[in-house]
């Protein structure tokens, strides 16, 4: 009896599991179909001139693209385009896509040699540094007809005055992310980052250029100041801020703001939008007193092996459909006028991504590369800022260290003495 029951169960068991699995599958596929029918916005790509893109179709070449992390539409969201795959489909050119985290990392990689890229996307100040050091080459705009879509206000910026080396990819501003439930102040401006009421709940940029820019706005200096006195004053202001700063961070801002660990942090508008999508309590404001406008632009390094294919890639990135896919996916603003027209009014008027022309012209500054001396000075001041401590601690650190050294050496001597004595016996 017992045995036969077992046997029946053993026979039934896979059957039950099998049917439930099947049921699961079928119900899944039903919901999938539902979702797809609801999803009306599956983006398709149309390009104006397919003929142009067919040039390298059968040559089997590939290009190396070096871009910021999470800075392209990769099709991972439903209905979005996988930009690199579309490019390969259209042109037959393979794309080797790799990432970097900071402009400085990109610079160090190129400077160190050994790496060959055809497309890089540095920010404004890094572009001017690379132009100065012959690390990027002039573009042939005859190969980039879609350059016409780039808005006039993003062309001929100070970092590339004749706009010979770069094609703007995205742009954005720096503002303040804050917790709307706990901060009730109106007219939030940069001075909130110094406010002692929020001591230890404030985050700050962990890179000197962005941090100094905030201090320079408060002091009314140019964001591209190379004056040592001005830099020192800015450093002084940042030193004053250190008392209320919880931590100097970059990408950790996402976690710390999300978890309610900190209340206020300056950050880039595009990332702020991503963060606000996830956490409803967060708000973002671009201070009245002005801010830094940054532009990331596509460039071709001097040693590029496939210059023409790279220019084709740049042109492709300027296709309205592609630029639209990029800006919708990464959240940063697009300089592409045709893509801008395609955006929802909600995004156009959110007061974060796209600001009115007057504010942009009057209150924002684009970074330019500083002289080597000014860069070194800023770096030194930054190091000093980050390494100074509460005065009281400083006073004891060195004496304590010396004491430890002395104790150590005395112990060594005693040990040796004891040992010698032992050896004699």
């Amino acid at each position, binding site marked *: 009896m017992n045995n036969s029951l077992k046997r029946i169960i053993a026979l039934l068991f896979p059957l039950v599991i099998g049917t439930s699995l099947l049921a699961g599958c079928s119900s899944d596929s039903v919901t999938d179909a539902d979702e797809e029918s609801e999803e009306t916005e599956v983006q398709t790509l149309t390009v104006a001139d397919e003929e142009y893109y067919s040039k390298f179709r059968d040559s089997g070449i590939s290009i190396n693209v070096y871009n910021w992390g999470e800075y392209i539409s990769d099709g991972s969201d439903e209905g979005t385009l996988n930009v690199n795959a579309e490019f390969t489909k259209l042109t037959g050119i393979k794309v080797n896509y790799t990432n970097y985290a900071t402009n400085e990392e990109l610079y160090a990689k190129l400077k160190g040699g050994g790496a060959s890229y055809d497309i890089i996307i540095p920010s404004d100040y890094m572009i001017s540094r690379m132009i100065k050091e012959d690390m990027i080459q002039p573009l042939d705009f005859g190969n980039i007809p879609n350059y016409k879509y780039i808005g006039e206000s993003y062309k001929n910026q100070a970092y590339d005055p004749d706009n010979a080396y770069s094609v703007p990819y995205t742009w954005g501003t720096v503002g303040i992310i804050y917790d709307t439930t706990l901060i009730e102040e109106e007219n939030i401006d940069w001075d909130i980052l110094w406010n002692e009421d929020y001591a230890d709940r404030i985050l700050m940029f962990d890179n*000197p250029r962005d941090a100094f820019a905030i201090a320079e706005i408060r002091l009314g200096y140019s964001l591209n100041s190379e004056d040592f006195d001005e830099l020192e004053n800015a450093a002084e202001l940042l030193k004053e801020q250190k008392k209320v700063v919880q*931590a100097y961070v970059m990408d950790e801002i996402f976690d710390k703001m999300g978890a309610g*660990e900190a209340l206020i942090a300056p950050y880039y508008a595009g990332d702020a939008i991503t963060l606000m999508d996830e956490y409803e309590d967060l708000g973002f404001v671009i201070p009245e007193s002005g801010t830094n406008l940054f532009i990331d632009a596509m460039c071709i390094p001097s040693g590029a092996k496939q210059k023409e294919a790279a220019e084709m890639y740049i042109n492709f990135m300027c296709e309205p459909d592609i630029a639209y896919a990029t800006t919708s996916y990464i959240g940063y603003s697009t300089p592409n006028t045709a893509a801008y027209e395609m955006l929802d009014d909600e995004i156009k008027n959110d007061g974060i991504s796209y600001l009115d022309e007057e504010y942009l012209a009057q209150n924002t500054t684009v970074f330019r590369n500083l002289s080597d001396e000014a860069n070194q000075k800023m770096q030194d001041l930054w190091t000093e800022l980050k390494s100074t401590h509460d005065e009281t601690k400083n006073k004891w650190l060195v004496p304590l260290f010396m004491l430890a050294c002395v104790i150590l050496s005395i112990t060594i001597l005693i040990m040796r003495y004891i040992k010698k004595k032992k050896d004699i016996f």
Partner: protein
Amino acid sequence: MKNKLISAPYLVWMVVFILVPLLMVAYFAFTDKDGNFTLNYVADVAQYSQIFVRSIWLAAIATVICLVISYPLAYILTGMSKNTQSTMLMLVMLPMWMNFLLRTYAWMTMLGNNGIINSIFGFFGLGPYKMLNTEGAVVLGMVYNYLPYMILPLYSVMVKIDKSVIEAASDLGCNTWNTLFRVVLPLSLPGVMSGITMVFVPAISTFIISRMLGGGGNLLIGDLIEMQFLGNAYNVNLGAAISLVLMVIILLIMTIMNQFGSDDETVLM
């Protein structure tokens, strides 16, 4: 001849990946941007002496804490049955199966003002205490991450101590304390030395722990060197000079430590 052949791969490896990079560090430290000889960068390192002192200090504290925790543990371990020993050793190694960054990141969420530890305190009406972004958190991170490097060499030396030596000591009227101090400790000194080396050296040059747990306001030498390469100024020569000075300091400290140990036993440097 045969021996030399066998060691050839390692020798090649050592020359290509250890000796050549070391020489390059020295080359960059003593040249300027145009490749001319200069002592300026090495001299410039003096302005960072405070950071050096803090790094050495924090690394030393972490090393001592590691030693204090590991020594009794390793000693107790050797007294256990073979099976328990291997289980315990596996438990020691277990955290190392996870990525270093991930482990440190976990501490970040645990120590935060809204983190797990402060939530527990909050449950009893205490705190919240500021734990993250302090020097203490940096030391904690060092101890946590490098503890296995102290336990393993200690254990592997202690497990080889002949039990009959200890028995002989007690036979001859030595009490537990004396056995520990006069028999076990001297015999385990090589393990102590290599444990200290393996904890102190990575601890002094770490940069990710101080950035994640120290909040960026507790700059250590590692951060300083990293800033020269990936920072605003891109000063490779200064970065190399700082690295070189750090190496010399470690060399000095290790030499002193070796004096501390017994003379005839060489310690892994």
